[in-house]
């Protein structure tokens, strides 16, 4: 099927190699290591049979639920233009642009991605992608540790709990002190005292709980003590929110799913990483630069390669090699499709609809503990067991949100949700959640 060799081809190739069979290729491998009867696996399927096989699997997913879950991954509208352009075979079936002269397409799109990320966040330099939002935070913390040579890290607890787990995996807690700071009334305490043993201040904007605050003063105070300030941002809200760059952050990282990738059960999506030029040599991952060839033609090429693992080996700034280029391409095309007005409407509609939903919930006797500080995402206090509520809401056709704690569900609203869906959600909630 995918192997082209006919009997005739095999004969010619065997003749060249002076062998009689495929088995003769492995005479130098110890017999004990050769599989005698091959693998214990099912027979192959044709495409037609595979359609049935995967149809059966797909049918087991409750993919039809109307999505009110967020936490970093949002059910926004992904235009067909973005999907079909990113699926162009030239983008999909190439690899890292090591050979610049035949890779100008990927190189230029990645350069545009870097520039678009910088423009959207008000930063100076972005890399060509990391794995996802969670791993990007850990990479940013590593940069801060390398830069400051300090061993303390101040981390806001208002992060996706999975992201905290990833940080705990990737940052060695035997060497570094991870200080998680609880939010107060769903906001980072503005009177928090930083000190000069700390390498980094990591905070989410908005917080995982959906509340949002101006972080300018905190950033200023952290910088006074020499900390590297790191902002984890929801990029799809940057059409309406003050940018992390304007608030003075040194590094911004993001889960870029909502710009250019479908929900994908969490992967593949894309991690964004942007910073200031003074950090350039500490940046993890690929970086594309603009240059000229000898005839003066504009050309793009991978740059600052000496940071990377294939050259620097154990002294590299990160071990990342394969990244999430195709998803970064998706981000670039989606941002270009949106434009300033589109990304504004995407954020503005989400905020308006979330606001409507909160007011309706409150009107129906529900408590929203962070009603006054939240924007598109908020905590909903339910009357019965929240995991039961999520389960029963599934039967009504809704993904009610993300289980937050024993009383709360984290609810997200995107520009895609309709008023009728919000109204029906609340009606169903009242039915299933009675204490």
């Amino acid at each position, binding site marked *: 099927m995918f192997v082209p060799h006919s009997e005739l081809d095999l004969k010619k190739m065997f003749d060249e190699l002076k062998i009689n069979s495929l088995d003769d290729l492995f005479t130098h491998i110890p017999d*004990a290591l050769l599989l005698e009867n091959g693998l214990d696996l099912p027979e192959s399927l044709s495409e037609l049979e595979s359609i049935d096989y995967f149809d059966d699997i797909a049918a087991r997913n409750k993919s039809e639920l109307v999505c009110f879950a967020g936490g970093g991954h949002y059910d926004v509208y992904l235009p067909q233009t973005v999907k079909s352009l990113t699926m162009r075979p030239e983008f999909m079936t190439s690899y890292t642009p090591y050979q610049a002269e035949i890779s100008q397409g990927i190189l230029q799109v990645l350069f545009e991605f870097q520039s678009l990320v910088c423009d959207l966040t008000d930063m100076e330099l972005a890399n060509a992608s990391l794995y996802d939002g969670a791993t990007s935070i850990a990479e940013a913390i590593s940069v801060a540790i390398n830069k400051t040579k300090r061993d303390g890290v101040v981390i806001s607890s208002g992060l996706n709990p999975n992201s905290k787990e990833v940080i705990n995996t990737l940052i060695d807690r035997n060497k570094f002190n991870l200080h998680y700071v609880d939010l107060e009334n769903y906001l980072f305490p503005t009177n928090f005292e930083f000190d000069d043993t700390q390498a980094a201040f990591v905070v989410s904007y908005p917080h995982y709980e959906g509340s949002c605050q101006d972080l300018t003063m905190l950033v200023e105070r952290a910088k006074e003590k020499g900390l590297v300030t790191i902002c984890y941002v929801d990029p799809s809200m940057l059409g309406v929110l003050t940018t992390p760059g304007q608030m003075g952050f040194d590094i911004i990282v993001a889960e870029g799913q909502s710009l250019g990738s479908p929900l994908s059960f969490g992967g593949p999506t894309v991690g964004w990483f942007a910073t200031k030029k003074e950090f350039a040599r500490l940046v993890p991952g690929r970086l594309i630069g603009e240059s000229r060839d000898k005839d003066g033609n504009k050309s793009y090429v991978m740059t600052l390669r000496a940071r990377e693992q294939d*050259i620097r080996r154990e002294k590299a700034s990160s071990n990342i090699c394969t990244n999430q280029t195709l998803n970064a391409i998706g981000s670039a095309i989606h941002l270009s499709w949106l434009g300033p007005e*589109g990304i504004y409407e995407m954020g503005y509609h989400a905020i308006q609809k979330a606001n409507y939903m909160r007011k309706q919930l409150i009107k129906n006797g529900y408590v929203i503990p962070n009603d006054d500080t939240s924007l598109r995402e908020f905590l909903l206090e339910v009357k019965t067991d929240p995991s039961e509520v999520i389960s029963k809401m599934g039967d009504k056709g809704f993904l009610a949100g993300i289980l937050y704690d024993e009383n709360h569900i984290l609810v997200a609203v995107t520009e895609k949700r309709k008023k009728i869906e919000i109204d029906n959600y609340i009606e169903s909630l009242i039915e299933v959640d009675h204490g």
Partner: protein
Amino acid sequence: MVSGGNASSLPLVGGKPEPTIKELSSPGRRASKFPKLDVPEVKINHESLKKEKARLPEVSEHDLVMHYSRLAHRNFAVDLGFYPLGSCTMKYNPRFADSIASDSRFANMHPSMPEQFTQGCLKVYYEIGNYLCEITGMDDASFQPPAGASGELTGLLIIKKYLEVNNLNHKTEIIVPDSAHGTNPASARMAGFTVVEVETDSRGMVNIEKLKEIVNVNTAGLMLTNPNTGGLFEEEILTISQIIHNAGGLLYYDGANLNAIVGASRPGDMGFDIVHSNLHKTFATPHGGGGPGSGPVAVKSFLREFLPGPIAENKDRKYNWYHPENSIGRMHGYHGNFLVTLRALVYMKLLGKEGLDKLGSYAVLNARYLSSKVSKIIPLAYDEPCMHEFVASVKDLKKSHKIKAYDVGKALLDKGFHSPTIYFPLIVEEALMFEPTETQSKETLDDLAESLKLIVDDLQKEDTVLEDYPKNLPVGRPNELIPAKYLTVNWGDFELLEITE
């Protein structure tokens, strides 16, 4: 020249540089359109809201589509021609897998949905786990790692945690061959180990005597790929694993070269305790211009409880997430690169036992055949039968004519081929590493060898200016010093440089 990899995809459309999307922008244009707001609009006051609009390009949808399509035309790809990039396994990626991965019942699943809503996704992980364990000879797998390097780090963190739990904290040294991928030492350092290099012998394999000298009570483990980065099968692998295991260390298999042995031999039977696989290499998921990949880690059963979780389990005909007891913790925000994993399962299903049993054989056949042809033009680095890839060296041409591996690679681009991997492994001077994969035909391999001969002849001519290659592509060799020195990494940076310089 008759087949894939010939010059018919050249010149890549162009000549003139494509403007950036920002240069195409004009105020007032837009591609996006959203429905009218259907809730009552109210005034929202919040300290985080800004007044100004974001700085993004303003283009029509047609302008946008033309721009990115033109850029696609300036990019070589597996679908256009022969991509013999060693160590990267650039094989054909079946279209069919893309259609399954685009099914909204997979693609539109929110990652935080509870188990009862995601039985299909869990089944995908469960099924492919079984395939992968059978192919590698391991017992349990986690699909958390989103790429190979992340899989390596996972493997090392598992070793570390295993040593911690067994009070063997003095074991801090990871042995890595001097021929290893750069990600190996980088990952070992990230996991907090000291890297100790073991030399390669004149045959191109791990020097067993040197290995014995290096191994000591502090040895935590060995990272090895088999076949190794020279494309050679480590024939003494059973001895190697005995040496490491006797010292109380663990054996880690870097799956970068797994394609060579699928169906023929298994890392688990060689004595490896931990194996990472690159689904984007061995199992044909598209490389995406540099990613996404997927780097699942499979282990022997005694290491199951250290795996990053959660991992998919099947109990009472239902699938659920299992959280290993001594888990190193998450390597990814959710479940790894699900849609990549799904594509790999599709590929495994299409190949089935028949296809997978012979996968390694065909990959090796193509490499062995190409190496036979290439050896008549450029000497090979090792006089041993290669597996799925091989290394040639132009060090003699460098001496005689100043022709570097770099120049040969650039000249090949003109002939419609991607360059092989150059300057790797580091221990071979002026290395060119070819990996044809099993999906290329005999004619394509012949074409490459023929082109290589023409190039080597051309480059030796007296009037040749090596820097002129490639000659018939949209751009020549970019000046690599400018961006490195002036950090022209954002639009406007270069123009600013032109004004100030």
